[in-house]
């Protein structure tokens, strides 16, 4: 039971982290119709910028400065890259962001090298907040939860209480109305792209010390972010939240419980082959849940796309 509670908390941390990435991606998609393949790359940039800043002035300034840099960079890329590609259509846009992801990874390796970076949590948070049956819950993870929830609340406030938020909400529901905004659509696009990437940057800043700061970090998280927003429903913020938490818990629990295929197959009345090593099904018999944990989200996505192409809470296709 205690392990269950710990897992709930761990899954929450993972889920909220995913949500920080997904919310930005969802905003961008809703406004611009672009699935930004390079979104996780901005997350990586956030971690690397914050690492660089932390070597000079410590962790805390990086928490603010790094996302701002990432956001500005994102806005510039929108202005001078994406906007140009926009005219060719959606597929080239998707391919552009795909290429951008490759390029950013190369640039990061060029600038920072290929080794893991010793980017660490601030000393002030380097203690155990509480323990459940010997399992320590670090204070830093509590901090992560608060930051993620804080960002979510700010986002909710902006979306529901401000004029810009209203416009964005309108775009979430009726994609074509954005075109009717008339003035400053490009500026809104640039702003949304900047803010969306900055949020990915924040996620990178706070996840870097825990999940590691290395050139493969974007690739590792990249496709799972897509999976999440597709599962949640493209363009749906609540769907993104639901799917993020779902996938966070799915992965945590899948890794924690050693459900073995052997037990399931025996329970189903099948007989374990005596000579397992030469059986064609030996891989099936030795399979465990943690082994397939990381691919469960993909399985979930494919199933959902077959059954309900608009995702869990999504309203529109494409």
């Amino acid at each position: 039971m205690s392990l269950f509670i710990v897992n709930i908390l761990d899954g929450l941390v993972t889920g909220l982290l995913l949500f920080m990435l997904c919310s930005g991606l969802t905003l961008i998609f809703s406004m611009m119709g672009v699935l930004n393949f390079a979104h996780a790359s901005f997350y990586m940039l956030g971690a690397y910028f914050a690492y660089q800043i932390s070597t000079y002035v410590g962790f805390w300034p990086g928490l603010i400065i790094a996302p701002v840099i990432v956001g500005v960079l994102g806005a510039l890329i929108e202005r001078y890259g994406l906007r140009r590609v926009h005219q060719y259509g959606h597929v080239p846009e998707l391919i552009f962001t795909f290429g951008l992801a490759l390029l950013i990874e190369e640039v990061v390796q060029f600038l920072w090298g290929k080794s893991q970076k010793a980017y660490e949590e601030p000393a002030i948070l380097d203690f155990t907040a509480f323990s459940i049956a010997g399992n320590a819950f670090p204070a830093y993870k509590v901090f992560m939860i608060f930051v993620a929830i804080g960002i979510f609340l700010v986002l909710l406030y902006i979306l529901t209480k401000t004029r810009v938020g209203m416009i964005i909400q309108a775009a979430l529901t009726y994609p074509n109305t954005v075109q009717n905004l008339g003035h400053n659509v490009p500026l809104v696009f640039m702003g949304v792209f900047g803010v969306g990437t900055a949020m990915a940057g924040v996620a990178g800043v706070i996840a870097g010390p825990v999940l590691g700061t290395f050139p493969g970090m974007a690739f590792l998280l990249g496709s799972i972010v897509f999976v999440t927003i597709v599962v949640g429903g493209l363009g749906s913020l609540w769907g993104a939240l639901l799917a993020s938490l779902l996938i966070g818990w799915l992965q945590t629990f899948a890794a924690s419980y050693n459900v073995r295929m052997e037990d399931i197959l025996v329970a189903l009345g099948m007989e374990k082959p005596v000579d397992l090593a030469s059986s064609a099904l030996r891989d099936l018999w030795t399979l465990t849940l943690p082994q397939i944990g990381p691919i469960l989200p993909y399985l979930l996505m494919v199933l959902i796309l077959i059954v309900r192409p608009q995702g869990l809470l999504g309203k529109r296709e494409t």
Partner: protein
Amino acid sequence: MNKFAKLLMGAAIAGLSATASFAADNIKIAFIDPLSGPFAATGKQGLAQYEFAANELVNKKGGVLGGANFEIVAFDNKISPKESLIQLQVAIDQGIRFIAQGNSSGVANALTDAIKKHNRRNPDKRVIFLNYSAVDPALTNDKCNFWHFRFDANADIKMDALTDIIKKNEGIKKVYLIGQDYSFGKAVAAAAVKMLGAKRPDIEIVGNELHPIGKVKDFTPYARKIIASGADAMITGNWGADMVGLGKSVISAGFKKPIYTYYAASDGITKTFGSDGEGVLKLVGEGQLNPPPNDRADAYVKAFKAKNPDTDIGQPRIANVIEMLARAIEDAGTADDMVKVATALEGMEHDSIWGTKVKIRESDHQAIQNVHILAHTKNDIAHDFDNSGFGLKVESTVDMASAESPTTCKMKRPE
């Protein structure tokens, strides 16, 4: 096909053949390992060590065969078996007869297989495979061949040494095994189960699991299980980001017991663990940097660091590869007849710079040498890693580990 493309292709391949036609005064060793992509750090570290060893241990002493120098030619295989085979072909075309590779047993498997076929199909252009780091036991067992030599202790030998140490530690009653879900991870787990069972039947294996390689974003759930199992020690074969992720998660979840591992040093890993790893991380491996086994080794490491301040001697056996290859070429009196060189290398006994004897076993071409348990620590470190102040210090040693271990290799020698 388009004219433009034809031209481009012509020009490029002409360039390629031009590089192939250099005069072969030097004895060239092809270094085929990742120099770009996610594993480039390890590859470049190995390259720096090869270049340094070739210069320091051979060329500065007048070379071999009366003046021929060793030259390391680097080929980037992007850690892909496909690219490795292409680069192998390029290397062979350049007249290179010695192939060094180490990162990834998958690549080593592809290479040893390709080299076996190549040598059979092209008896006039045979090559030798110097495997300095790929530790899949199969390479010197079922998949062994006459052209393959392994200078690192393989996974089974390391586990043999490790379990010898654990055997003496009465405090360890419960062990947790975790590794990456592929041949090497499985080999480590299987060896641990077998050897612990034989040497310490009282030890309970409270966990034995595999996680997908390179796919786990957050190891916290695994760490929770390990803590909950009440393990007194943990054994893992993880490397790279998987090692850092697992280690950091386990430590921050409150694990204070030893973590026995194969690869958890250098390439930023030592620095990333820093003080968290003190007293927890234990490596099993060959090569002694701390305390320096002798003045020669001390001077060698110092000279290397002076030249490569941002790189470490993470794979000390590379010095053995170079020294032993030089000796074999001298003994054979040729650098062209690979049968003679390989025969000279077989059974060679060598006093290594690292204070151990290294013997290439004839039966399977596996190097037998001292294997150590090394502690990640800040104390008494003469040569640190990642310039972090932390390094690896020898804690205990198994002399000539697994010298008598059986092998399934049926070595076929050319007539």
